[in-house]
Structure formats: structure tokens, C-alpha cells
């Protein structure tokens, strides 16, 4: 468990800093409410009005989410592979991982050719 103490300390510091910033901002900053201040993103560009009752987002967001989850799963396997890498005798570890990534890359090629990466 001693291993985790630096991580826990870092976590406490991070949460502490976040909490401190929010609380201090609320306490010390001036409070002038107007329309721009109440926008979701205070960046100067008017957001597109949302349809009443939520409405639906275009289905291309779904593809983005699917891409994210698949490549997330792919990446997660790189961790144990990297940690164990110097224990592998010979090239087999590298070959296995290249084969794995190449197969998922086929999906990438397919999506790219089908315009799945274009935002129209």
C-alpha cells in the first residue's frame, strides 16, 4: 500500500486545488450576471439554439463514441504489454502486438475510406 501514498497525496493535492479554485473564485470574484455569462461556453460565439425538449444529436456522434471506445480498449492492452516487454524472449511479443494493432488498423482504414472520419 505504501506504493500508492505518492499517488494519494497527488490526488488530494489535485482535488484540493480544484476545490480551492472554485470556492475562492466564487467568494472573491465580482458577480455580474448577464446573458453571455450564463452560456454553457463563455467563448464569444453564440451557441446554436437547442430544439425544445432536448432533440436529437446527429448520429455521427455515435461513430465518434464507438471509435473512442474501440481504440480505448486497444490502448489498454499496451500497458501490460509494455510493462512485461523486456521479459519476452525473442520477437514474439512485438509480433503479437503488431498483429493486434494491424487488425484494428484495418477497421481504421475501412472507416477512413468510408468517410467516417469526415465531419461533413
Amino acid at each position, binding site marked *: 500500500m505504501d506504493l500508492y501514498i505518492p499517488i494519494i497525496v497527488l490526488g488530494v493535492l489535485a482535488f484540493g486545488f480544484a476545490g480551492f479554485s472554485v470556492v475562492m473564485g466564487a467568494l472573491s470574484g465580482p458577480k455580474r450576471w448577464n446573458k453571455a455569462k450564463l452560456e454553457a461556453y463563455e467563448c464569444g460565439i453564440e451557441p446554436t439554439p437547442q430544439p425544445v425538449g432536448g432533440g436529437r444529436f446527429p448520429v455521427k456522434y455515435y461513430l465518434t463514441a*464507438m471509435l473512442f*471506445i474501440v481504440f480505448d*480498449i*486497444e490502448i489498454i492492452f499496451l500497458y501490460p504489454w509494455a510493462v512485461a516487454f523486456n*521479459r519476452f524472449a525473442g520477437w514474439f511479443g512485438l509480433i*503479437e502486438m503488431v498483429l493486434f494493432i494491424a487488425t484494428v488498423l484495418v477497421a481504421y482504414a475501412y472507416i477512413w475510406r468510408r468517410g467516417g472520419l469526415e465531419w461533413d
Partner: protein
Amino acid sequence: MTTLDVVFVLLGVVAVGAAVLVVTTRQLVHAALWLVVSFGALAGGYLMLTAEFVAWVQVLIYVGAVVVLLLFGIMLTRAPIGRSADLDSGNRWAALAVALATAGVLVTVLVRGFRTAYAPLDVAGQGAAKPLGESVFRIWVLPFEVLSVLLLAALVGAIVLSRREI
């Protein structure tokens, strides 16, 4: 009770409490966010049991990706954002009975099965990245490679179901 026991029990309470809120809240988005809390507490539990890689998988895949997919699903469908009465099912008492019965059976099985089980918490466990890496890339190489095929099939399916221009 050591400090570790107390922390572990607290994490468990958070996980179960958040899970109860997932099914009782009237707001769909809140349910998804409570799921994050539940998954996060579960990841903490894995970490306490020295399964650090499993904990990271829990955070990266479940908290990071699955909940994102859930939220996207809420955005893509006409699911109500905000408080809605539809989320209250008429079957809730039956559901409660089923849930309690399932929990009762599983808790009994696990308690009776693992009452005497013991795992040392002061050394790196089997759920750390290194032992997992060593067995995945040697013993489990075939299922691992087939997993890439599964990911490929999933992405092809996603494209088939969503892209207009072919």
C-alpha cells in the same frame, strides 16, 4: 479493523449507494453520472485488493468510455434530458424483489465460497500489469488476437448501422 478495512468498506458503501441512486433517480443524465461514481468506487476497491491494472481498466474503459457511450446514447435518442416521470416504472416493486433475491443469492454464494479465502495485500497481486502482461501474451495469446477481430467486427458493424453514404 485496520485502516484498509475501513477504507474498503467505505468504498463499498459508496459503490452500492451510487448504484441505488442510478436506478432511483428521475433524471437520466444523473443516472449515468451516478454510474461514474459507482464505477469509480469499484475501481478503488480493485486498487485496495492490489489489482492495480484491473482498477485502471475500470477507470479507463468503464468510467472513461462506457459512460461516455451511455451519455452519447442519451443525446442521440429522444431520451428526456431533465426530470421525467417516465423513469418511474410500475414494476418497481417486482424489480425490487428480483434485485433483492438476486443480491441475496449472490452474496450468500460469495460469502460461503470465499469466507476462508486469503490474499496478501502487501505484495503486488495477480491483477497488476506485469503478471497480466506475462500471461496474456503467452498463455492467452489466441483469445487476445481474436479480441482484435472482435473489435474490428464491432467497428464494421457500427459503420454499417450509422453511415449514410456507402
